[in-house]
């Protein structure tokens, strides 16, 4: 059991175990039937994209539709590499996501520590501005953001995608809240008495204690950056710098688009997160709904 769990321990105990009595047998059957229909609706597009990845364009749109595994997988793969430098693009996505995640974990925790451990003039003002900035819809700054990026000479670089997120308000707030809960002032004072430098207190005393919050932030950042589409769309222009979302979208409107190949690319682009979710579903769900439950 990790500490990332969304429920407080004492609440978890109160999960009603035997509520079946108020739902008679028929009701229970109906409940499960209902859930299973929901599952099928949820899963179908994923199963469908996996199937389509093995079919040619003509087979995908044939009648009756193909509900079996096709034999066009290799051809689709070759076609996919023709329409986009798939592995370069995948690597780009990975680089953007990893760089942004590592940066965010490092710098958000640093800033959060600054807000948590010190009292200084202007702290409340800056913290207030930070909270307020979370309410501003990102669309509002989109155009000047683009111009800023252009002015800094960062157009068509990956830096422009991940750099703006490394000290984001959400991450700082999340980690500061966690510090408030889990780190006592006495501990910091004790470390100071022992003669540890300010940065060393942060690095060797505080960081190890807030690992769960760092994991939460890392999950949120990685998923957000991996799936990001709008920033790459306005920033990137050369196809070999594209990230997955942008590359897939750009081959959509090709004349005679090879849909089998596109579906293969789409499927492969979803695969890393799906596999991660298979193993870490609890942590990922807890992380992505962290704001809601703690809010």
């Amino acid at each position, binding site marked *: 059991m990790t500490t990332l769990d969304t429920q407080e321990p004492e609440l978890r105990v109160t999960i009603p175990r035997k509520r079946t009595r108020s739902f008679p047998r028929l009701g229970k059957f109906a409940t499960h039937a209902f859930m299973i229909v929901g599952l099928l609706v*949820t899963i179908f597009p994923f199963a469908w994209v996996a199937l389509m990845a093995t079919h040619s364009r003509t087979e995908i749109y044939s009648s009756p539709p193909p509900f079996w595994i096709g034999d066009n997988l290799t051809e689709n793969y070759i076609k996919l590499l023709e329409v986009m430098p798939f592995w370069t693009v995948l690597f780009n996505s990975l680089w953007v996501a990893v760089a942004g995640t590592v940066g965010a974990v490092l710098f958000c925790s640093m800033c959060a520590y600054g807000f948590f451990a*010190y009292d200084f003039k202007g702290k409340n003002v800056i913290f207030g501005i930070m909270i307020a900035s979370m309410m501003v819809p*990102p669309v509002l*700054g989109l155009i000047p953001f683009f111009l800023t990026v*252009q002015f800094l000479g960062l157009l068509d670089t990956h830096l422009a995608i991940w750099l703006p997120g490394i000290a984001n308000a959400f991450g700082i707030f999340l980690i500061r809240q966690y510090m408030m809960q889990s780190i006592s002032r006495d501990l910091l004072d004790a470390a100071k008495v022992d003669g540890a430098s300010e940065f060393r207190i942060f690095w060797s005393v505080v960081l190890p204690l807030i690992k769960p919050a760092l994991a939460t932030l890392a999950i949120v950042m990685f998923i957000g950056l991996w*799936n990001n589409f709008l920033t790459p769309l306005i920033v990137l222009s050369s196809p070999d710098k594209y990230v*997955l979302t942008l590359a897939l979208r750009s081959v959509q409107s090709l004349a005679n688009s090879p849909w089998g190949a596109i579906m293969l690319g789409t499927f492969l682009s979803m695969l890393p997160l799906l596999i991660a979710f298979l193993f870490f579903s609890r942590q990922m769900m807890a992380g992505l709904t962290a704001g809601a439950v703690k809010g």
Partner: protein
Amino acid sequence: MAITPHDPVGQSPHGPETASEKPRRVRGHAARRRWIKTLTPWLFISPFIIIFSVFTAFPLVFSGYLSFQEWNPVAGLSSMEFVGWDNYALALDDPWMWKSLYNTAWLAIVSGIPQHLIAIPVAYLLVTAVRSGVRQFYTATFFVPFITSTVAISLIFYTIYSGNSGILNQWLVAISKWPVFSSFLGWVEEAMPIRWLNSSDLIKPSIAFVVIWKYTGFNIVIYSAGFLTVSKDLYDAAKVDGCNAWQQFWNIALPMIRPFAFFAVTLTIIGNLQMFEEPFVLTSGNSGGVGQSGLTASYYLYLVGWEWLEMGAAAAISWVLFLFIAIVTAVHFYFNGKKGLGGDR
């Protein structure tokens, strides 16, 4: 600092006088420590200040300034020209602007409300009537669409919706031939091919379905967490008082999850009003689809800024959009906020 070998005091950070007298040196040292003490917190929060100023604060201010200018960024900074409220007047005059705001509101409502109407009962059933292990399995599966990129999902639905023998249309035809369904689905065969993404009437519902499909699972997880906080004693007490299953849900469980509902609805409103990727991909980035009926406000903003290169007008539009979002959110906070937050504060 450049240190030359001929400069003996250069090694000392306090300058020549600190090395001369002992008391002074101590005072200098103390001053330096005080400086470090004031500076340390600022060093810790400096990443935020730098990134925030460059990528958020400056763009916001500049966007306000830009909205009163006419400017094509390709022509360089010097081509900027003050035009007063012209950009706003132009934006408010543009029928596409109003169409996009209408579409945004339509999509926000039609794709927003069902998410919660489905998620609340499903979460309640999962928490009260399903064993914990099985519940984990169900919620995790429902959550999968949320972690998948919107572009990938929209591409998949793009093929599913395809008018020319896409899987959805083929299913509709197949189902309409079944004995029971044929009586009221008889029209389906004649209506084929149904162009889900290429007709102005159907594109919005098609987009809305994708949004509902993607975000309902997220809401189920939030509401499940909410229902889990309702203690079993409350239900037991209600049962003793003679509440039936429906009353337990309506009078006990629902009021208890108000804070969760408030949060989930806020997220839906803010997210839906900025909807961009689903309509963009489902209309293959083609000016909002047939008759611009898939054009949302963010999409319109993108067209004006990046396709037509009217940065000033686009900045004005983003402020109009901001006002729109702010008003809707404020109304939501006003009517639901007190009750929503009343639960835990």
